């Protein structure tokens, strides 16, 4: 007889790093991505020990990750509105205080900021579709995660890339 947690281990082992990268790209913050990754696998653990049957573990885990990200965005919106109400900053949450690095590091950070700014302009669905594809998910897997028809995936990816390319160009990223 297998223990309830036994099905969890391969899912965890195979997907921990990819899910972290997926969430890091969405979040841009290592600590936040770590916490979200843990939240994803705690949910997965609970579902598996609760008897969830996994036909496609990868699509299943990414679906949890996408939903966790969506929930997190809701929480973050509340946070952002709190920041807007306190333009002087919230107690204990000042800027990172990092010292300026060498020119190359500054340029790289500036480039990353511009890329992120372009990504932020995408709709949530378009962004998730692109992130999932970049994470290596197939069209059927993306369809399953997002709850859309397989036929719609190509359309969504085309639209997302087309828009993102435009936004990147306006940010000077060619």
């Amino acid at each position, binding site marked *: 007889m297998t223990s309830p947690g036994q099905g*969890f281990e391969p899912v965890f082992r195979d997907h921990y790093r990819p899910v972290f990268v997926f969430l890091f790209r969405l979040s841009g913050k290592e600590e936040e991505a770590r916490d979200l990754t843990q939240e994803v696998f705690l949910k997965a653990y609970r579902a598996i020990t609760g008897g969830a049957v996994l036909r496609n573990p990868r699509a299943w885990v990414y679906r949890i990750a996408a939903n966790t990200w969506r929930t997190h965005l809701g929480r973050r919106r509340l946070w952002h509105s709190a920041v807007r109400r306190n333009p002087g900053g919230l107690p204990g949450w000042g800027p990172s205080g990092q010292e300026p690095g060498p020119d190359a590091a500054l340029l790289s950070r500036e480039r990353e900021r511009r890329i992120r700014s372009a990504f932020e302009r995408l709709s949530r669905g378009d962004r998730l579709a692109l992130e999932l594809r970049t994470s290596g998910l*197939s069209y059927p897997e993306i369809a399953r995660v997002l709850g859309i028809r397989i036929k719609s*995936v190509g*359309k969504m990816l085309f639209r997302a890339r*087309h828009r993102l*390319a435009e936004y990147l160009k306006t940010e000077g990223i060619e």
Partner: protein
Amino acid sequence: MKHARQNEITAHLDGALSPEKGKRLLDHLAQCERCRSLEEEIRRERDLVDRAFRGLDPSNIPAPPEISRPTGGKVHSFSIPKTGVGKRYSRIAAAALLLAAAALSAVLILSVAGRHPGVSYAELEEHALGSFRAETPAKAAGRPMIRSVRAGGRAARAYIIRDRDTSVTFVWIERSIEKDGNHENIL
């Protein structure tokens, strides 16, 4: 054949078209300049987006925490006995437990971080777990909770989830070490 659609070309570039559809598309592209230039444009956008994604990759991908063996590893399952507190008093008890846990955690974290730079992981984990044990009965079941304890460049993060039905609590300990200003997970 009709002109190729954008989503078809996209799926083709992503390797997601069936062999028959792929062949039909390639045959058409070979004889239609308009669709070839559309394909070229979609390919350029795709490459630009791929390059942008690479610019967002993390510099440090943490190793997954060790989960292999509950006895020798860092995953612990234990049952928390029922408190025996009646419904009537449960809210008061919960509030008291929460306050006690918060005070205990603050004292532990401050004392560990402030006085013992060479503190062992076992101690850090025990502190993180200690605050959980006090807190869990008062928390809603099924909600993951996270606690971090850090000292002397070492950190232990404990994650907890309580199964509503079985009352078994799953605790997951992650160790990390500070390196060049970042925290890297270690097994």
